[in-house]
């Protein structure tokens, strides 16, 4: 104690801050007042007294307690009931997808027509100005066309889907979803709050990863972060919705088709949740072992949604944000694709060479070389898989003037797509590696690249494995 520097008095106590001397004396004295084993009891008494006082004051100052909100409680009983909770949740999601699928067709077509009409005009302008061919190619066929695809294919579904999804959030439905899922997560050996972070992931996986901060235990937080990517985010929903709406067809009426497509998207969401639970279960029994912690989940009251704010917020925060990000990533990607398509070695373009290189592996998991290449090039933002894919197909084969989803369908069919290719692509999109932003967020939230890499490899491995099993199974038994 003599070595201790600072303002010490004779008894080893410090006058400026808490020293071990002060600490030990206080702990010693405390024992005289209360033995450690009695402390818990005191705590309960104190908490109880405060609780009773609060109750007393509340009773004194509340004039009328109001009609007990029976309606709200009854709604909650239904929405979170053991039997109806899940079906209602799926129906609601399905309904939203259905409206999106039905509503997005026409505006998509109009946008495509307008944007490709404009492309023609721009081309004419370029020729008049005498721009060299390669510059015209990169700018118009590369960058402009990819961006036109991004906008015409993605904007309408987003403009319909996001406000509806935000409406569900604003009504207070998401905490009910978490309530329904809470028990399943506990059974998977993880924190019930993961149901909430997963729900956030439907919006954006990077946001979902950040929201894992609400989980205190590092073990459970890591599991929530690693598995967040298994639910489709706003950037991937359009792909699911578009592919479902053009490939899920039957000979029956169009209404029936759109309903079927919506069901398929719901099924994919369900698969995502199931994989989330399975992987969480696996992780909590292997490298991240431990017991789940408990927590109280409070169901907030339903709030009257503010329609105006929903429209503005979903448009600015989601639609424009996702679209802006897509366009920004798509522009350079479009240029790269064009260059790959127009640089030839021994008579075949680079893009064909790369695609051909990826082809054998891609085939195994139900994709083709171009699809896999699109997923790889879309690492910065999952939103641009379809636009890049179309650029790939169109730049290496006959030029077409795509004008609508119908044409989109034709392009894909002409490139050998079947319903199985669509399913495999959707599945791969659901399960494959997270986008660059999410990976960087994981690195930031966990403090090391280790977990970002781990997530990358785990998700990709699972995607490849699931696709492989599904495709081989179907090829073997059905086709």
């Amino acid at each position, binding site marked *: 104690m003599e070595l*201790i*520097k*600072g303002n010490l008095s004779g008894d080893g*106590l*410090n*006058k*400026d*801050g*808490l*020293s*071990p001397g*002060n*600490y030990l004396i*206080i702990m010693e*004295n*405390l024992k005289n*007042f*209360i033995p*450690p084993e009695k*402390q818990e009891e*005191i*705590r309960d*008494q*104190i*908490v109880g*007294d*405060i*609780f009773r*006082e*609060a*109750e007393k*004051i*509340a009773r*004194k*100052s*509340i*004039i*009328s*307690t*109001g*009609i007990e*909100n029976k309606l709200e409680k009854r709604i909650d009983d239904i929405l979170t009931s053991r039997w109806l909770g899940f079906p209602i949740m799926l129906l609601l999601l399905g309904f939203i997808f259905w409206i999106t699928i039905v509503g997005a067709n026409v505006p998509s077509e109009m946008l495509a027509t307008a944007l490709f009409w404009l492309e023609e005009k721009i081309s004419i302008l370029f020729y008049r100005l005498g721009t060299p061919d390669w510059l015209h190619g990169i700018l118009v066929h590369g960058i402009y066309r990819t961006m036109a695809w991004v906008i015409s294919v993605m904007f309408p579904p987003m403009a319909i889907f996001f406000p509806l999804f935000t409406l569900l959030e604003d009504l207070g439905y998401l905490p009910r979803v978490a309530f329904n899922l809470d028990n399943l997560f506990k059974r998977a050996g993880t*924190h019930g709050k993961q149901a909430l972070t997963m729900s956030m992931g439907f919006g954006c996986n990077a946001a979902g990863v950040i929201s894992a*901060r609400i989980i*205190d*235990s*590092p*073990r*459970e937080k890591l599991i929530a972060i690693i598995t967040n990517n298994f639910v489709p985010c706003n950037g991937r929903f359009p792909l699911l919705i578009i592919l479902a709406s053009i490939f899920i067809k039957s000979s029956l009426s169009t209404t029936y088709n759109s309903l079927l497509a919506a069901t398929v998207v719901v099924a994919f969401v369900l698969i995502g949740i199931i994989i989330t639970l399975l992987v969480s279960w696996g992780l909590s029994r292997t490298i991240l*072992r*431990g*017991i*789940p*912690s*408990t927590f109280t989940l*409070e169901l*907030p*009251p339903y709030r009257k949604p*503010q329609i105006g704010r929903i429209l503005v917020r979903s448009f600015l925060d989601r639609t424009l944000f996702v679209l802006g990000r897509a366009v920004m990533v798509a522009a350079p990607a479009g240029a790269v694709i064009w260059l790959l398509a127009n640089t030839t070695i021994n008579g075949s373009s680079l893009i064909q060479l790369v695609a051909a290189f990826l082809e054998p592996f891609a085939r195994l998991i139900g994709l083709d070389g171009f699809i896999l290449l699109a997923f790889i090039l879309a690492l910065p933002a999952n939103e641009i898989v379809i636009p890049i894919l179309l650029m790939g197909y169109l730049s290496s084969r006959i030029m077409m003037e795509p004008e609508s989803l119908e044409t989109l369908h034709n392009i894909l069919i002409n490139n050998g797509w079947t319903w199985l290719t669509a399913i495999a692509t959707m599945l791969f999109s659901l399960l494959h590696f997270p986008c660059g932003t999410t990976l960087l967020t994981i690195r930031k*939230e966990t403090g090391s690249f280790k977990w970002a890499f781990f997530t990358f490899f785990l998700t990709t491995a699972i995607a490849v494995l699931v696709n492989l099993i599904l495709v081989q199974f179907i090829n073997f038994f059905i086709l």
Partner: protein
Amino acid sequence: MNKSAESIALNLIRRNFNIKNDDNKPLIALAGNPNTGKSTIFNGLTGLRQHTGNWPGKTVNRAEGYYRYKGREFLLIDLPGTYSLLANSTEELIARDFICFARPDITLVVADATNLERNLNLALQVLELSTNTVLVMNLMDEAERKGIKIDVKKLESCLQIPVIPAVARDGKGLEEIKKTCYRIIREGIKFKGIQMSYSREIEEKIAGLIPVLQRNLTFLEDKINWRWLALRLLEGDKTILYSISTYFPVYREAVNIIQKGDVQLDGVN
């Protein structure tokens, strides 16, 4: 210590919470249960004059901002939403340490009018720590819709602090909050604030422990509520002495002897 030395010392402690307040703006903390519209009030008061980040060394969101009223600037800190100040979680620990050590000039407790009882729980705990407290009864419109009527005057006389009804979403009550805070600061108003009293057994222990604490922790004189500190020690709070050693450090290595008393993180291996 004279007045300016005191404020320099307080500013030093507040720096631990990332508060740089060299021009001595009055510091207002916003406390409250989750889902009470605390952030709506924060946004309503500060508008765009805010910035967000994390609490030092923690992955808990922190928002800080300021607003101007009658030519005076007020610094506003949004504390994490908590149900109590018992340091059961990182959020509760942050909220408690802030009110205890950064000693805001005013603490606004935001309460949900539709759930008065549970919200008063927190208000009573804040009052034990600091009586410079104002209760904001938010969501008054929702309470009204549900047929809940609250006698604000009665509540004020029970709690012995100002109670301001508000509908933060519509901006109602914000002006009143600014006016009240302004008056409290300008006129140096102190409130009595209801104080919890406990069983005779506990009260005796408190009375006995306070002199011991005062003798041994002289550096905390005028900087902490002794009664509150005694209560925390009696109930076996594992975190409070460690927090004291953090905000009133002597020398780094020796602090190791003081039990860290981390917040219980369930389920960690």
